[in-house]
């Protein structure tokens, strides 16, 4: 702690936005927990699940998929090159799961009974599987992330001890993630009469799993770029290029299966029907599936930082659109009501996302996320110059 400037950071535009979002979200939180779901959501008996399930839970879990993909790459397949991005990716996954756990507490009618799933078992329920996966994978992610914190406070002995269990932990992570990502799709299998044919398919679990890997890899690229911009970390561009290439293959497999699933149910005619669902479908599949697949797949755009960043953003947005389409757009027609989230639902979601960003920034600042502990030196090169240097490196294809 050297001086007041460290305690009271400069006022910036994003800090003001963050504060405003947190204030609004806190007020919405008070409304939710004092007056209940009726006062704080636009949900109804006809439309029991909304934004908190569609975005906070389904997307929070999905965007964390990079975590198990990258840890498996390094610890199980021994592609050591990817080690530098393990920690930021695990951090993203961990924050994603914390977001999900928090959002569940908002969405459950009786949040303090959340533990019921631990002792009152119904193994036939997909929701039971989801509950256990959330619990167990959150625990695994905690164990995977803990060494970073322990290293920072100098407890090297316990940190080393946990690291000895890296491989079993990563294995557990892969198993639980595979179950969890797909079970979120299985949730909707019970609604063949309700979910629109453009989204309903017996393949939903497989589609959810594949799209989560695609989006999870997109998220790794997205988050690397943001860290590079915000914290002036070295951009591991060669690694990202490999990840982009993998993402292109995953997205291609996903898209083939996606259209296969629609064809198998004889719903191809819906692809050209002039109906709201069709427009949402193409927004999701063309902009968020085909476009990033092509951008990631074509070497020229993949090697271009702007092209890669754009593709990553599209992949993440396409994934979010898909989850919202399955949970909201696709169920609208059969419900007979129009659901649009209330301001409370939106502000709570924004607050949770903003807190995720803030937690990431704080973790990068105070924990050894990128390489070993280095106390920020005030004598480092001026940020602007450093950033330019990296940009030049990238432009030179480094």
């Amino acid at each position, binding site marked *: 702690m050297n001086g007041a400037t460290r305690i009271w950071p400069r006022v910036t535009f994003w800090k003001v936005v963050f504060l405003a979002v947190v204030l609004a979200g806190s007020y919405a939180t008070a409304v939710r927990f004092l007056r209940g779901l009726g006062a704080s959501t636009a949900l109804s008996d006809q439309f029991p699940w909304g934004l908190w399930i569609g975005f906070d839970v389904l997307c929070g879990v999905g965007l964390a998929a990079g975590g198990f993909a990258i840890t498996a790459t390094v610890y199980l397949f021994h592609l050591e090159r990817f080690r530098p991005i393990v920690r930021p990716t695990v951090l993203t996954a961990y924050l994603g799961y914390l977001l999900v756990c928090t959002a569940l507490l908002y969405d459950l009618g009786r949040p303090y009974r959340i533990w019921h799933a631990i002792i009152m078992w119904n193994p*036939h*329920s997909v929701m039971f599987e989801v509950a256990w996966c959330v619990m167990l994978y959150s625990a695994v992610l905690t164990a995977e992330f803990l060494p970073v914190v322990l290293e920072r406070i100098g407890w090297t002995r316990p940190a080393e001890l946990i690291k000895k269990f890296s491989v079993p932990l990563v294995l557990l992570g892969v198993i639980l993630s595979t179950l969890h990502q797909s079970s979120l799709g299985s949730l909707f299998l019970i609604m063949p*009469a309700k979910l629109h044919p453009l989204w309903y398919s017996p393949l939903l679990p497989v589609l959810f799993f594949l799209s989560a890997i695609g989006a999870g890899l997109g998220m790794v690229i997205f988050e690397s770029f943001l860290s590079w911009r915000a914290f002036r970390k070295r951009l591991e561009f060669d690694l990202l290029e490999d990840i982009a290439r993998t993402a292109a293959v995953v997205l291609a497999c996903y898209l083939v299966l996606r259209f296969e699933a629609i064809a198998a149910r004889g719903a191809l005619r819906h692809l050209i029907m002039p109906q709201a669902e069709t427009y949402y479908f193409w927004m999701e599949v063309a902009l968020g599936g085909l476009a990033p697949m092509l951008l990631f797949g074509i070497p020229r755009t993949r090697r271009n930082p702007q092209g890669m960043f754009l593709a990553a953003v599209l992949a993440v947005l396409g994934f979010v659109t898909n989850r919202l389409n399955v949970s909201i757009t696709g169920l609208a027609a059969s419900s007979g009501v129009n659901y649009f989230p209330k301001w409370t639902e939106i502000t709570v979601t924004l607050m949770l996302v903003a807190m995720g960003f803030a937690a990431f920034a704080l973790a990068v600042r105070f924990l050894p996320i990128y390489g070993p502990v280095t106390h920020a030196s005030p004598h480092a090169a001026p940020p602007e110059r450093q950033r330019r240097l990296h940009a030049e490196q990238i432009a030179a294809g480094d």
Partner: protein
Amino acid sequence: MTRKGFLGVTGISAAVLAARKLRSVFAASGPAASPPVRWAMVIDTQKCLKKAGCIDCIAACHKVHNVPEIKDRAHEIKWVWKEPFKQAFPAQETAYTEEAYKGKPFPVLCNHCDNPPCVRVCPTKATWKREDGLVMMDWHRCIGCRYCMAACPYGSRSFNWVDPRPHLRRIDIEFPTRTKGVVEKCTFCAERLARGQAPACVQACKEQKALVFGNLADPDSDVSRLVRSRFTLRRKPGLGTNPEVYYIIG
């Protein structure tokens, strides 16, 4: 542990498990159980429609079960309610049904399905199926995840979006009230069946006799005779839920 030792322990464990399983099989074939019961309802819609605007069954049910009266449609609680033909029996209408049944509501309630999706999806078994077919709910077990509502194809489940108690005009102390944040629905009046009484809605319809309730497993019961002698419809039969509420239409 040696390989031989490991195999030995595994073998003995398997034998013990098998013996226990066998014992339970023999135990099940012991003294005969009480005669089977499968509660079901038959609704004669012609009789029901005769008394236009009648809501006796709804009023009686909601009174004895402390169902709140909430005006806001998004938050209302309903155990028995009415639907137009098209909503009650989609894909079972003809081009002329609309005209024939225009403005004629059909009473609907929980179907107490033989294969209930709500029971399958509940993560905590807060809703479960009894041996006699009743689909029950434990409001202390329910965590309010609302998966059962997403799964039920009939809209038979209501969530307490707001605190129901201020909306109760009169509290029947014989039946529990609910809190906000849990799901509820028709229970086929399990508490009245236990006392040997007919469900409240059936009792309320005594004069019209549009609602008939009974044991479908007993071939001599009224419901059995009706479903065997009259043509009946069930709601959304294609979904494989096997509803146990039958409708006589014509």
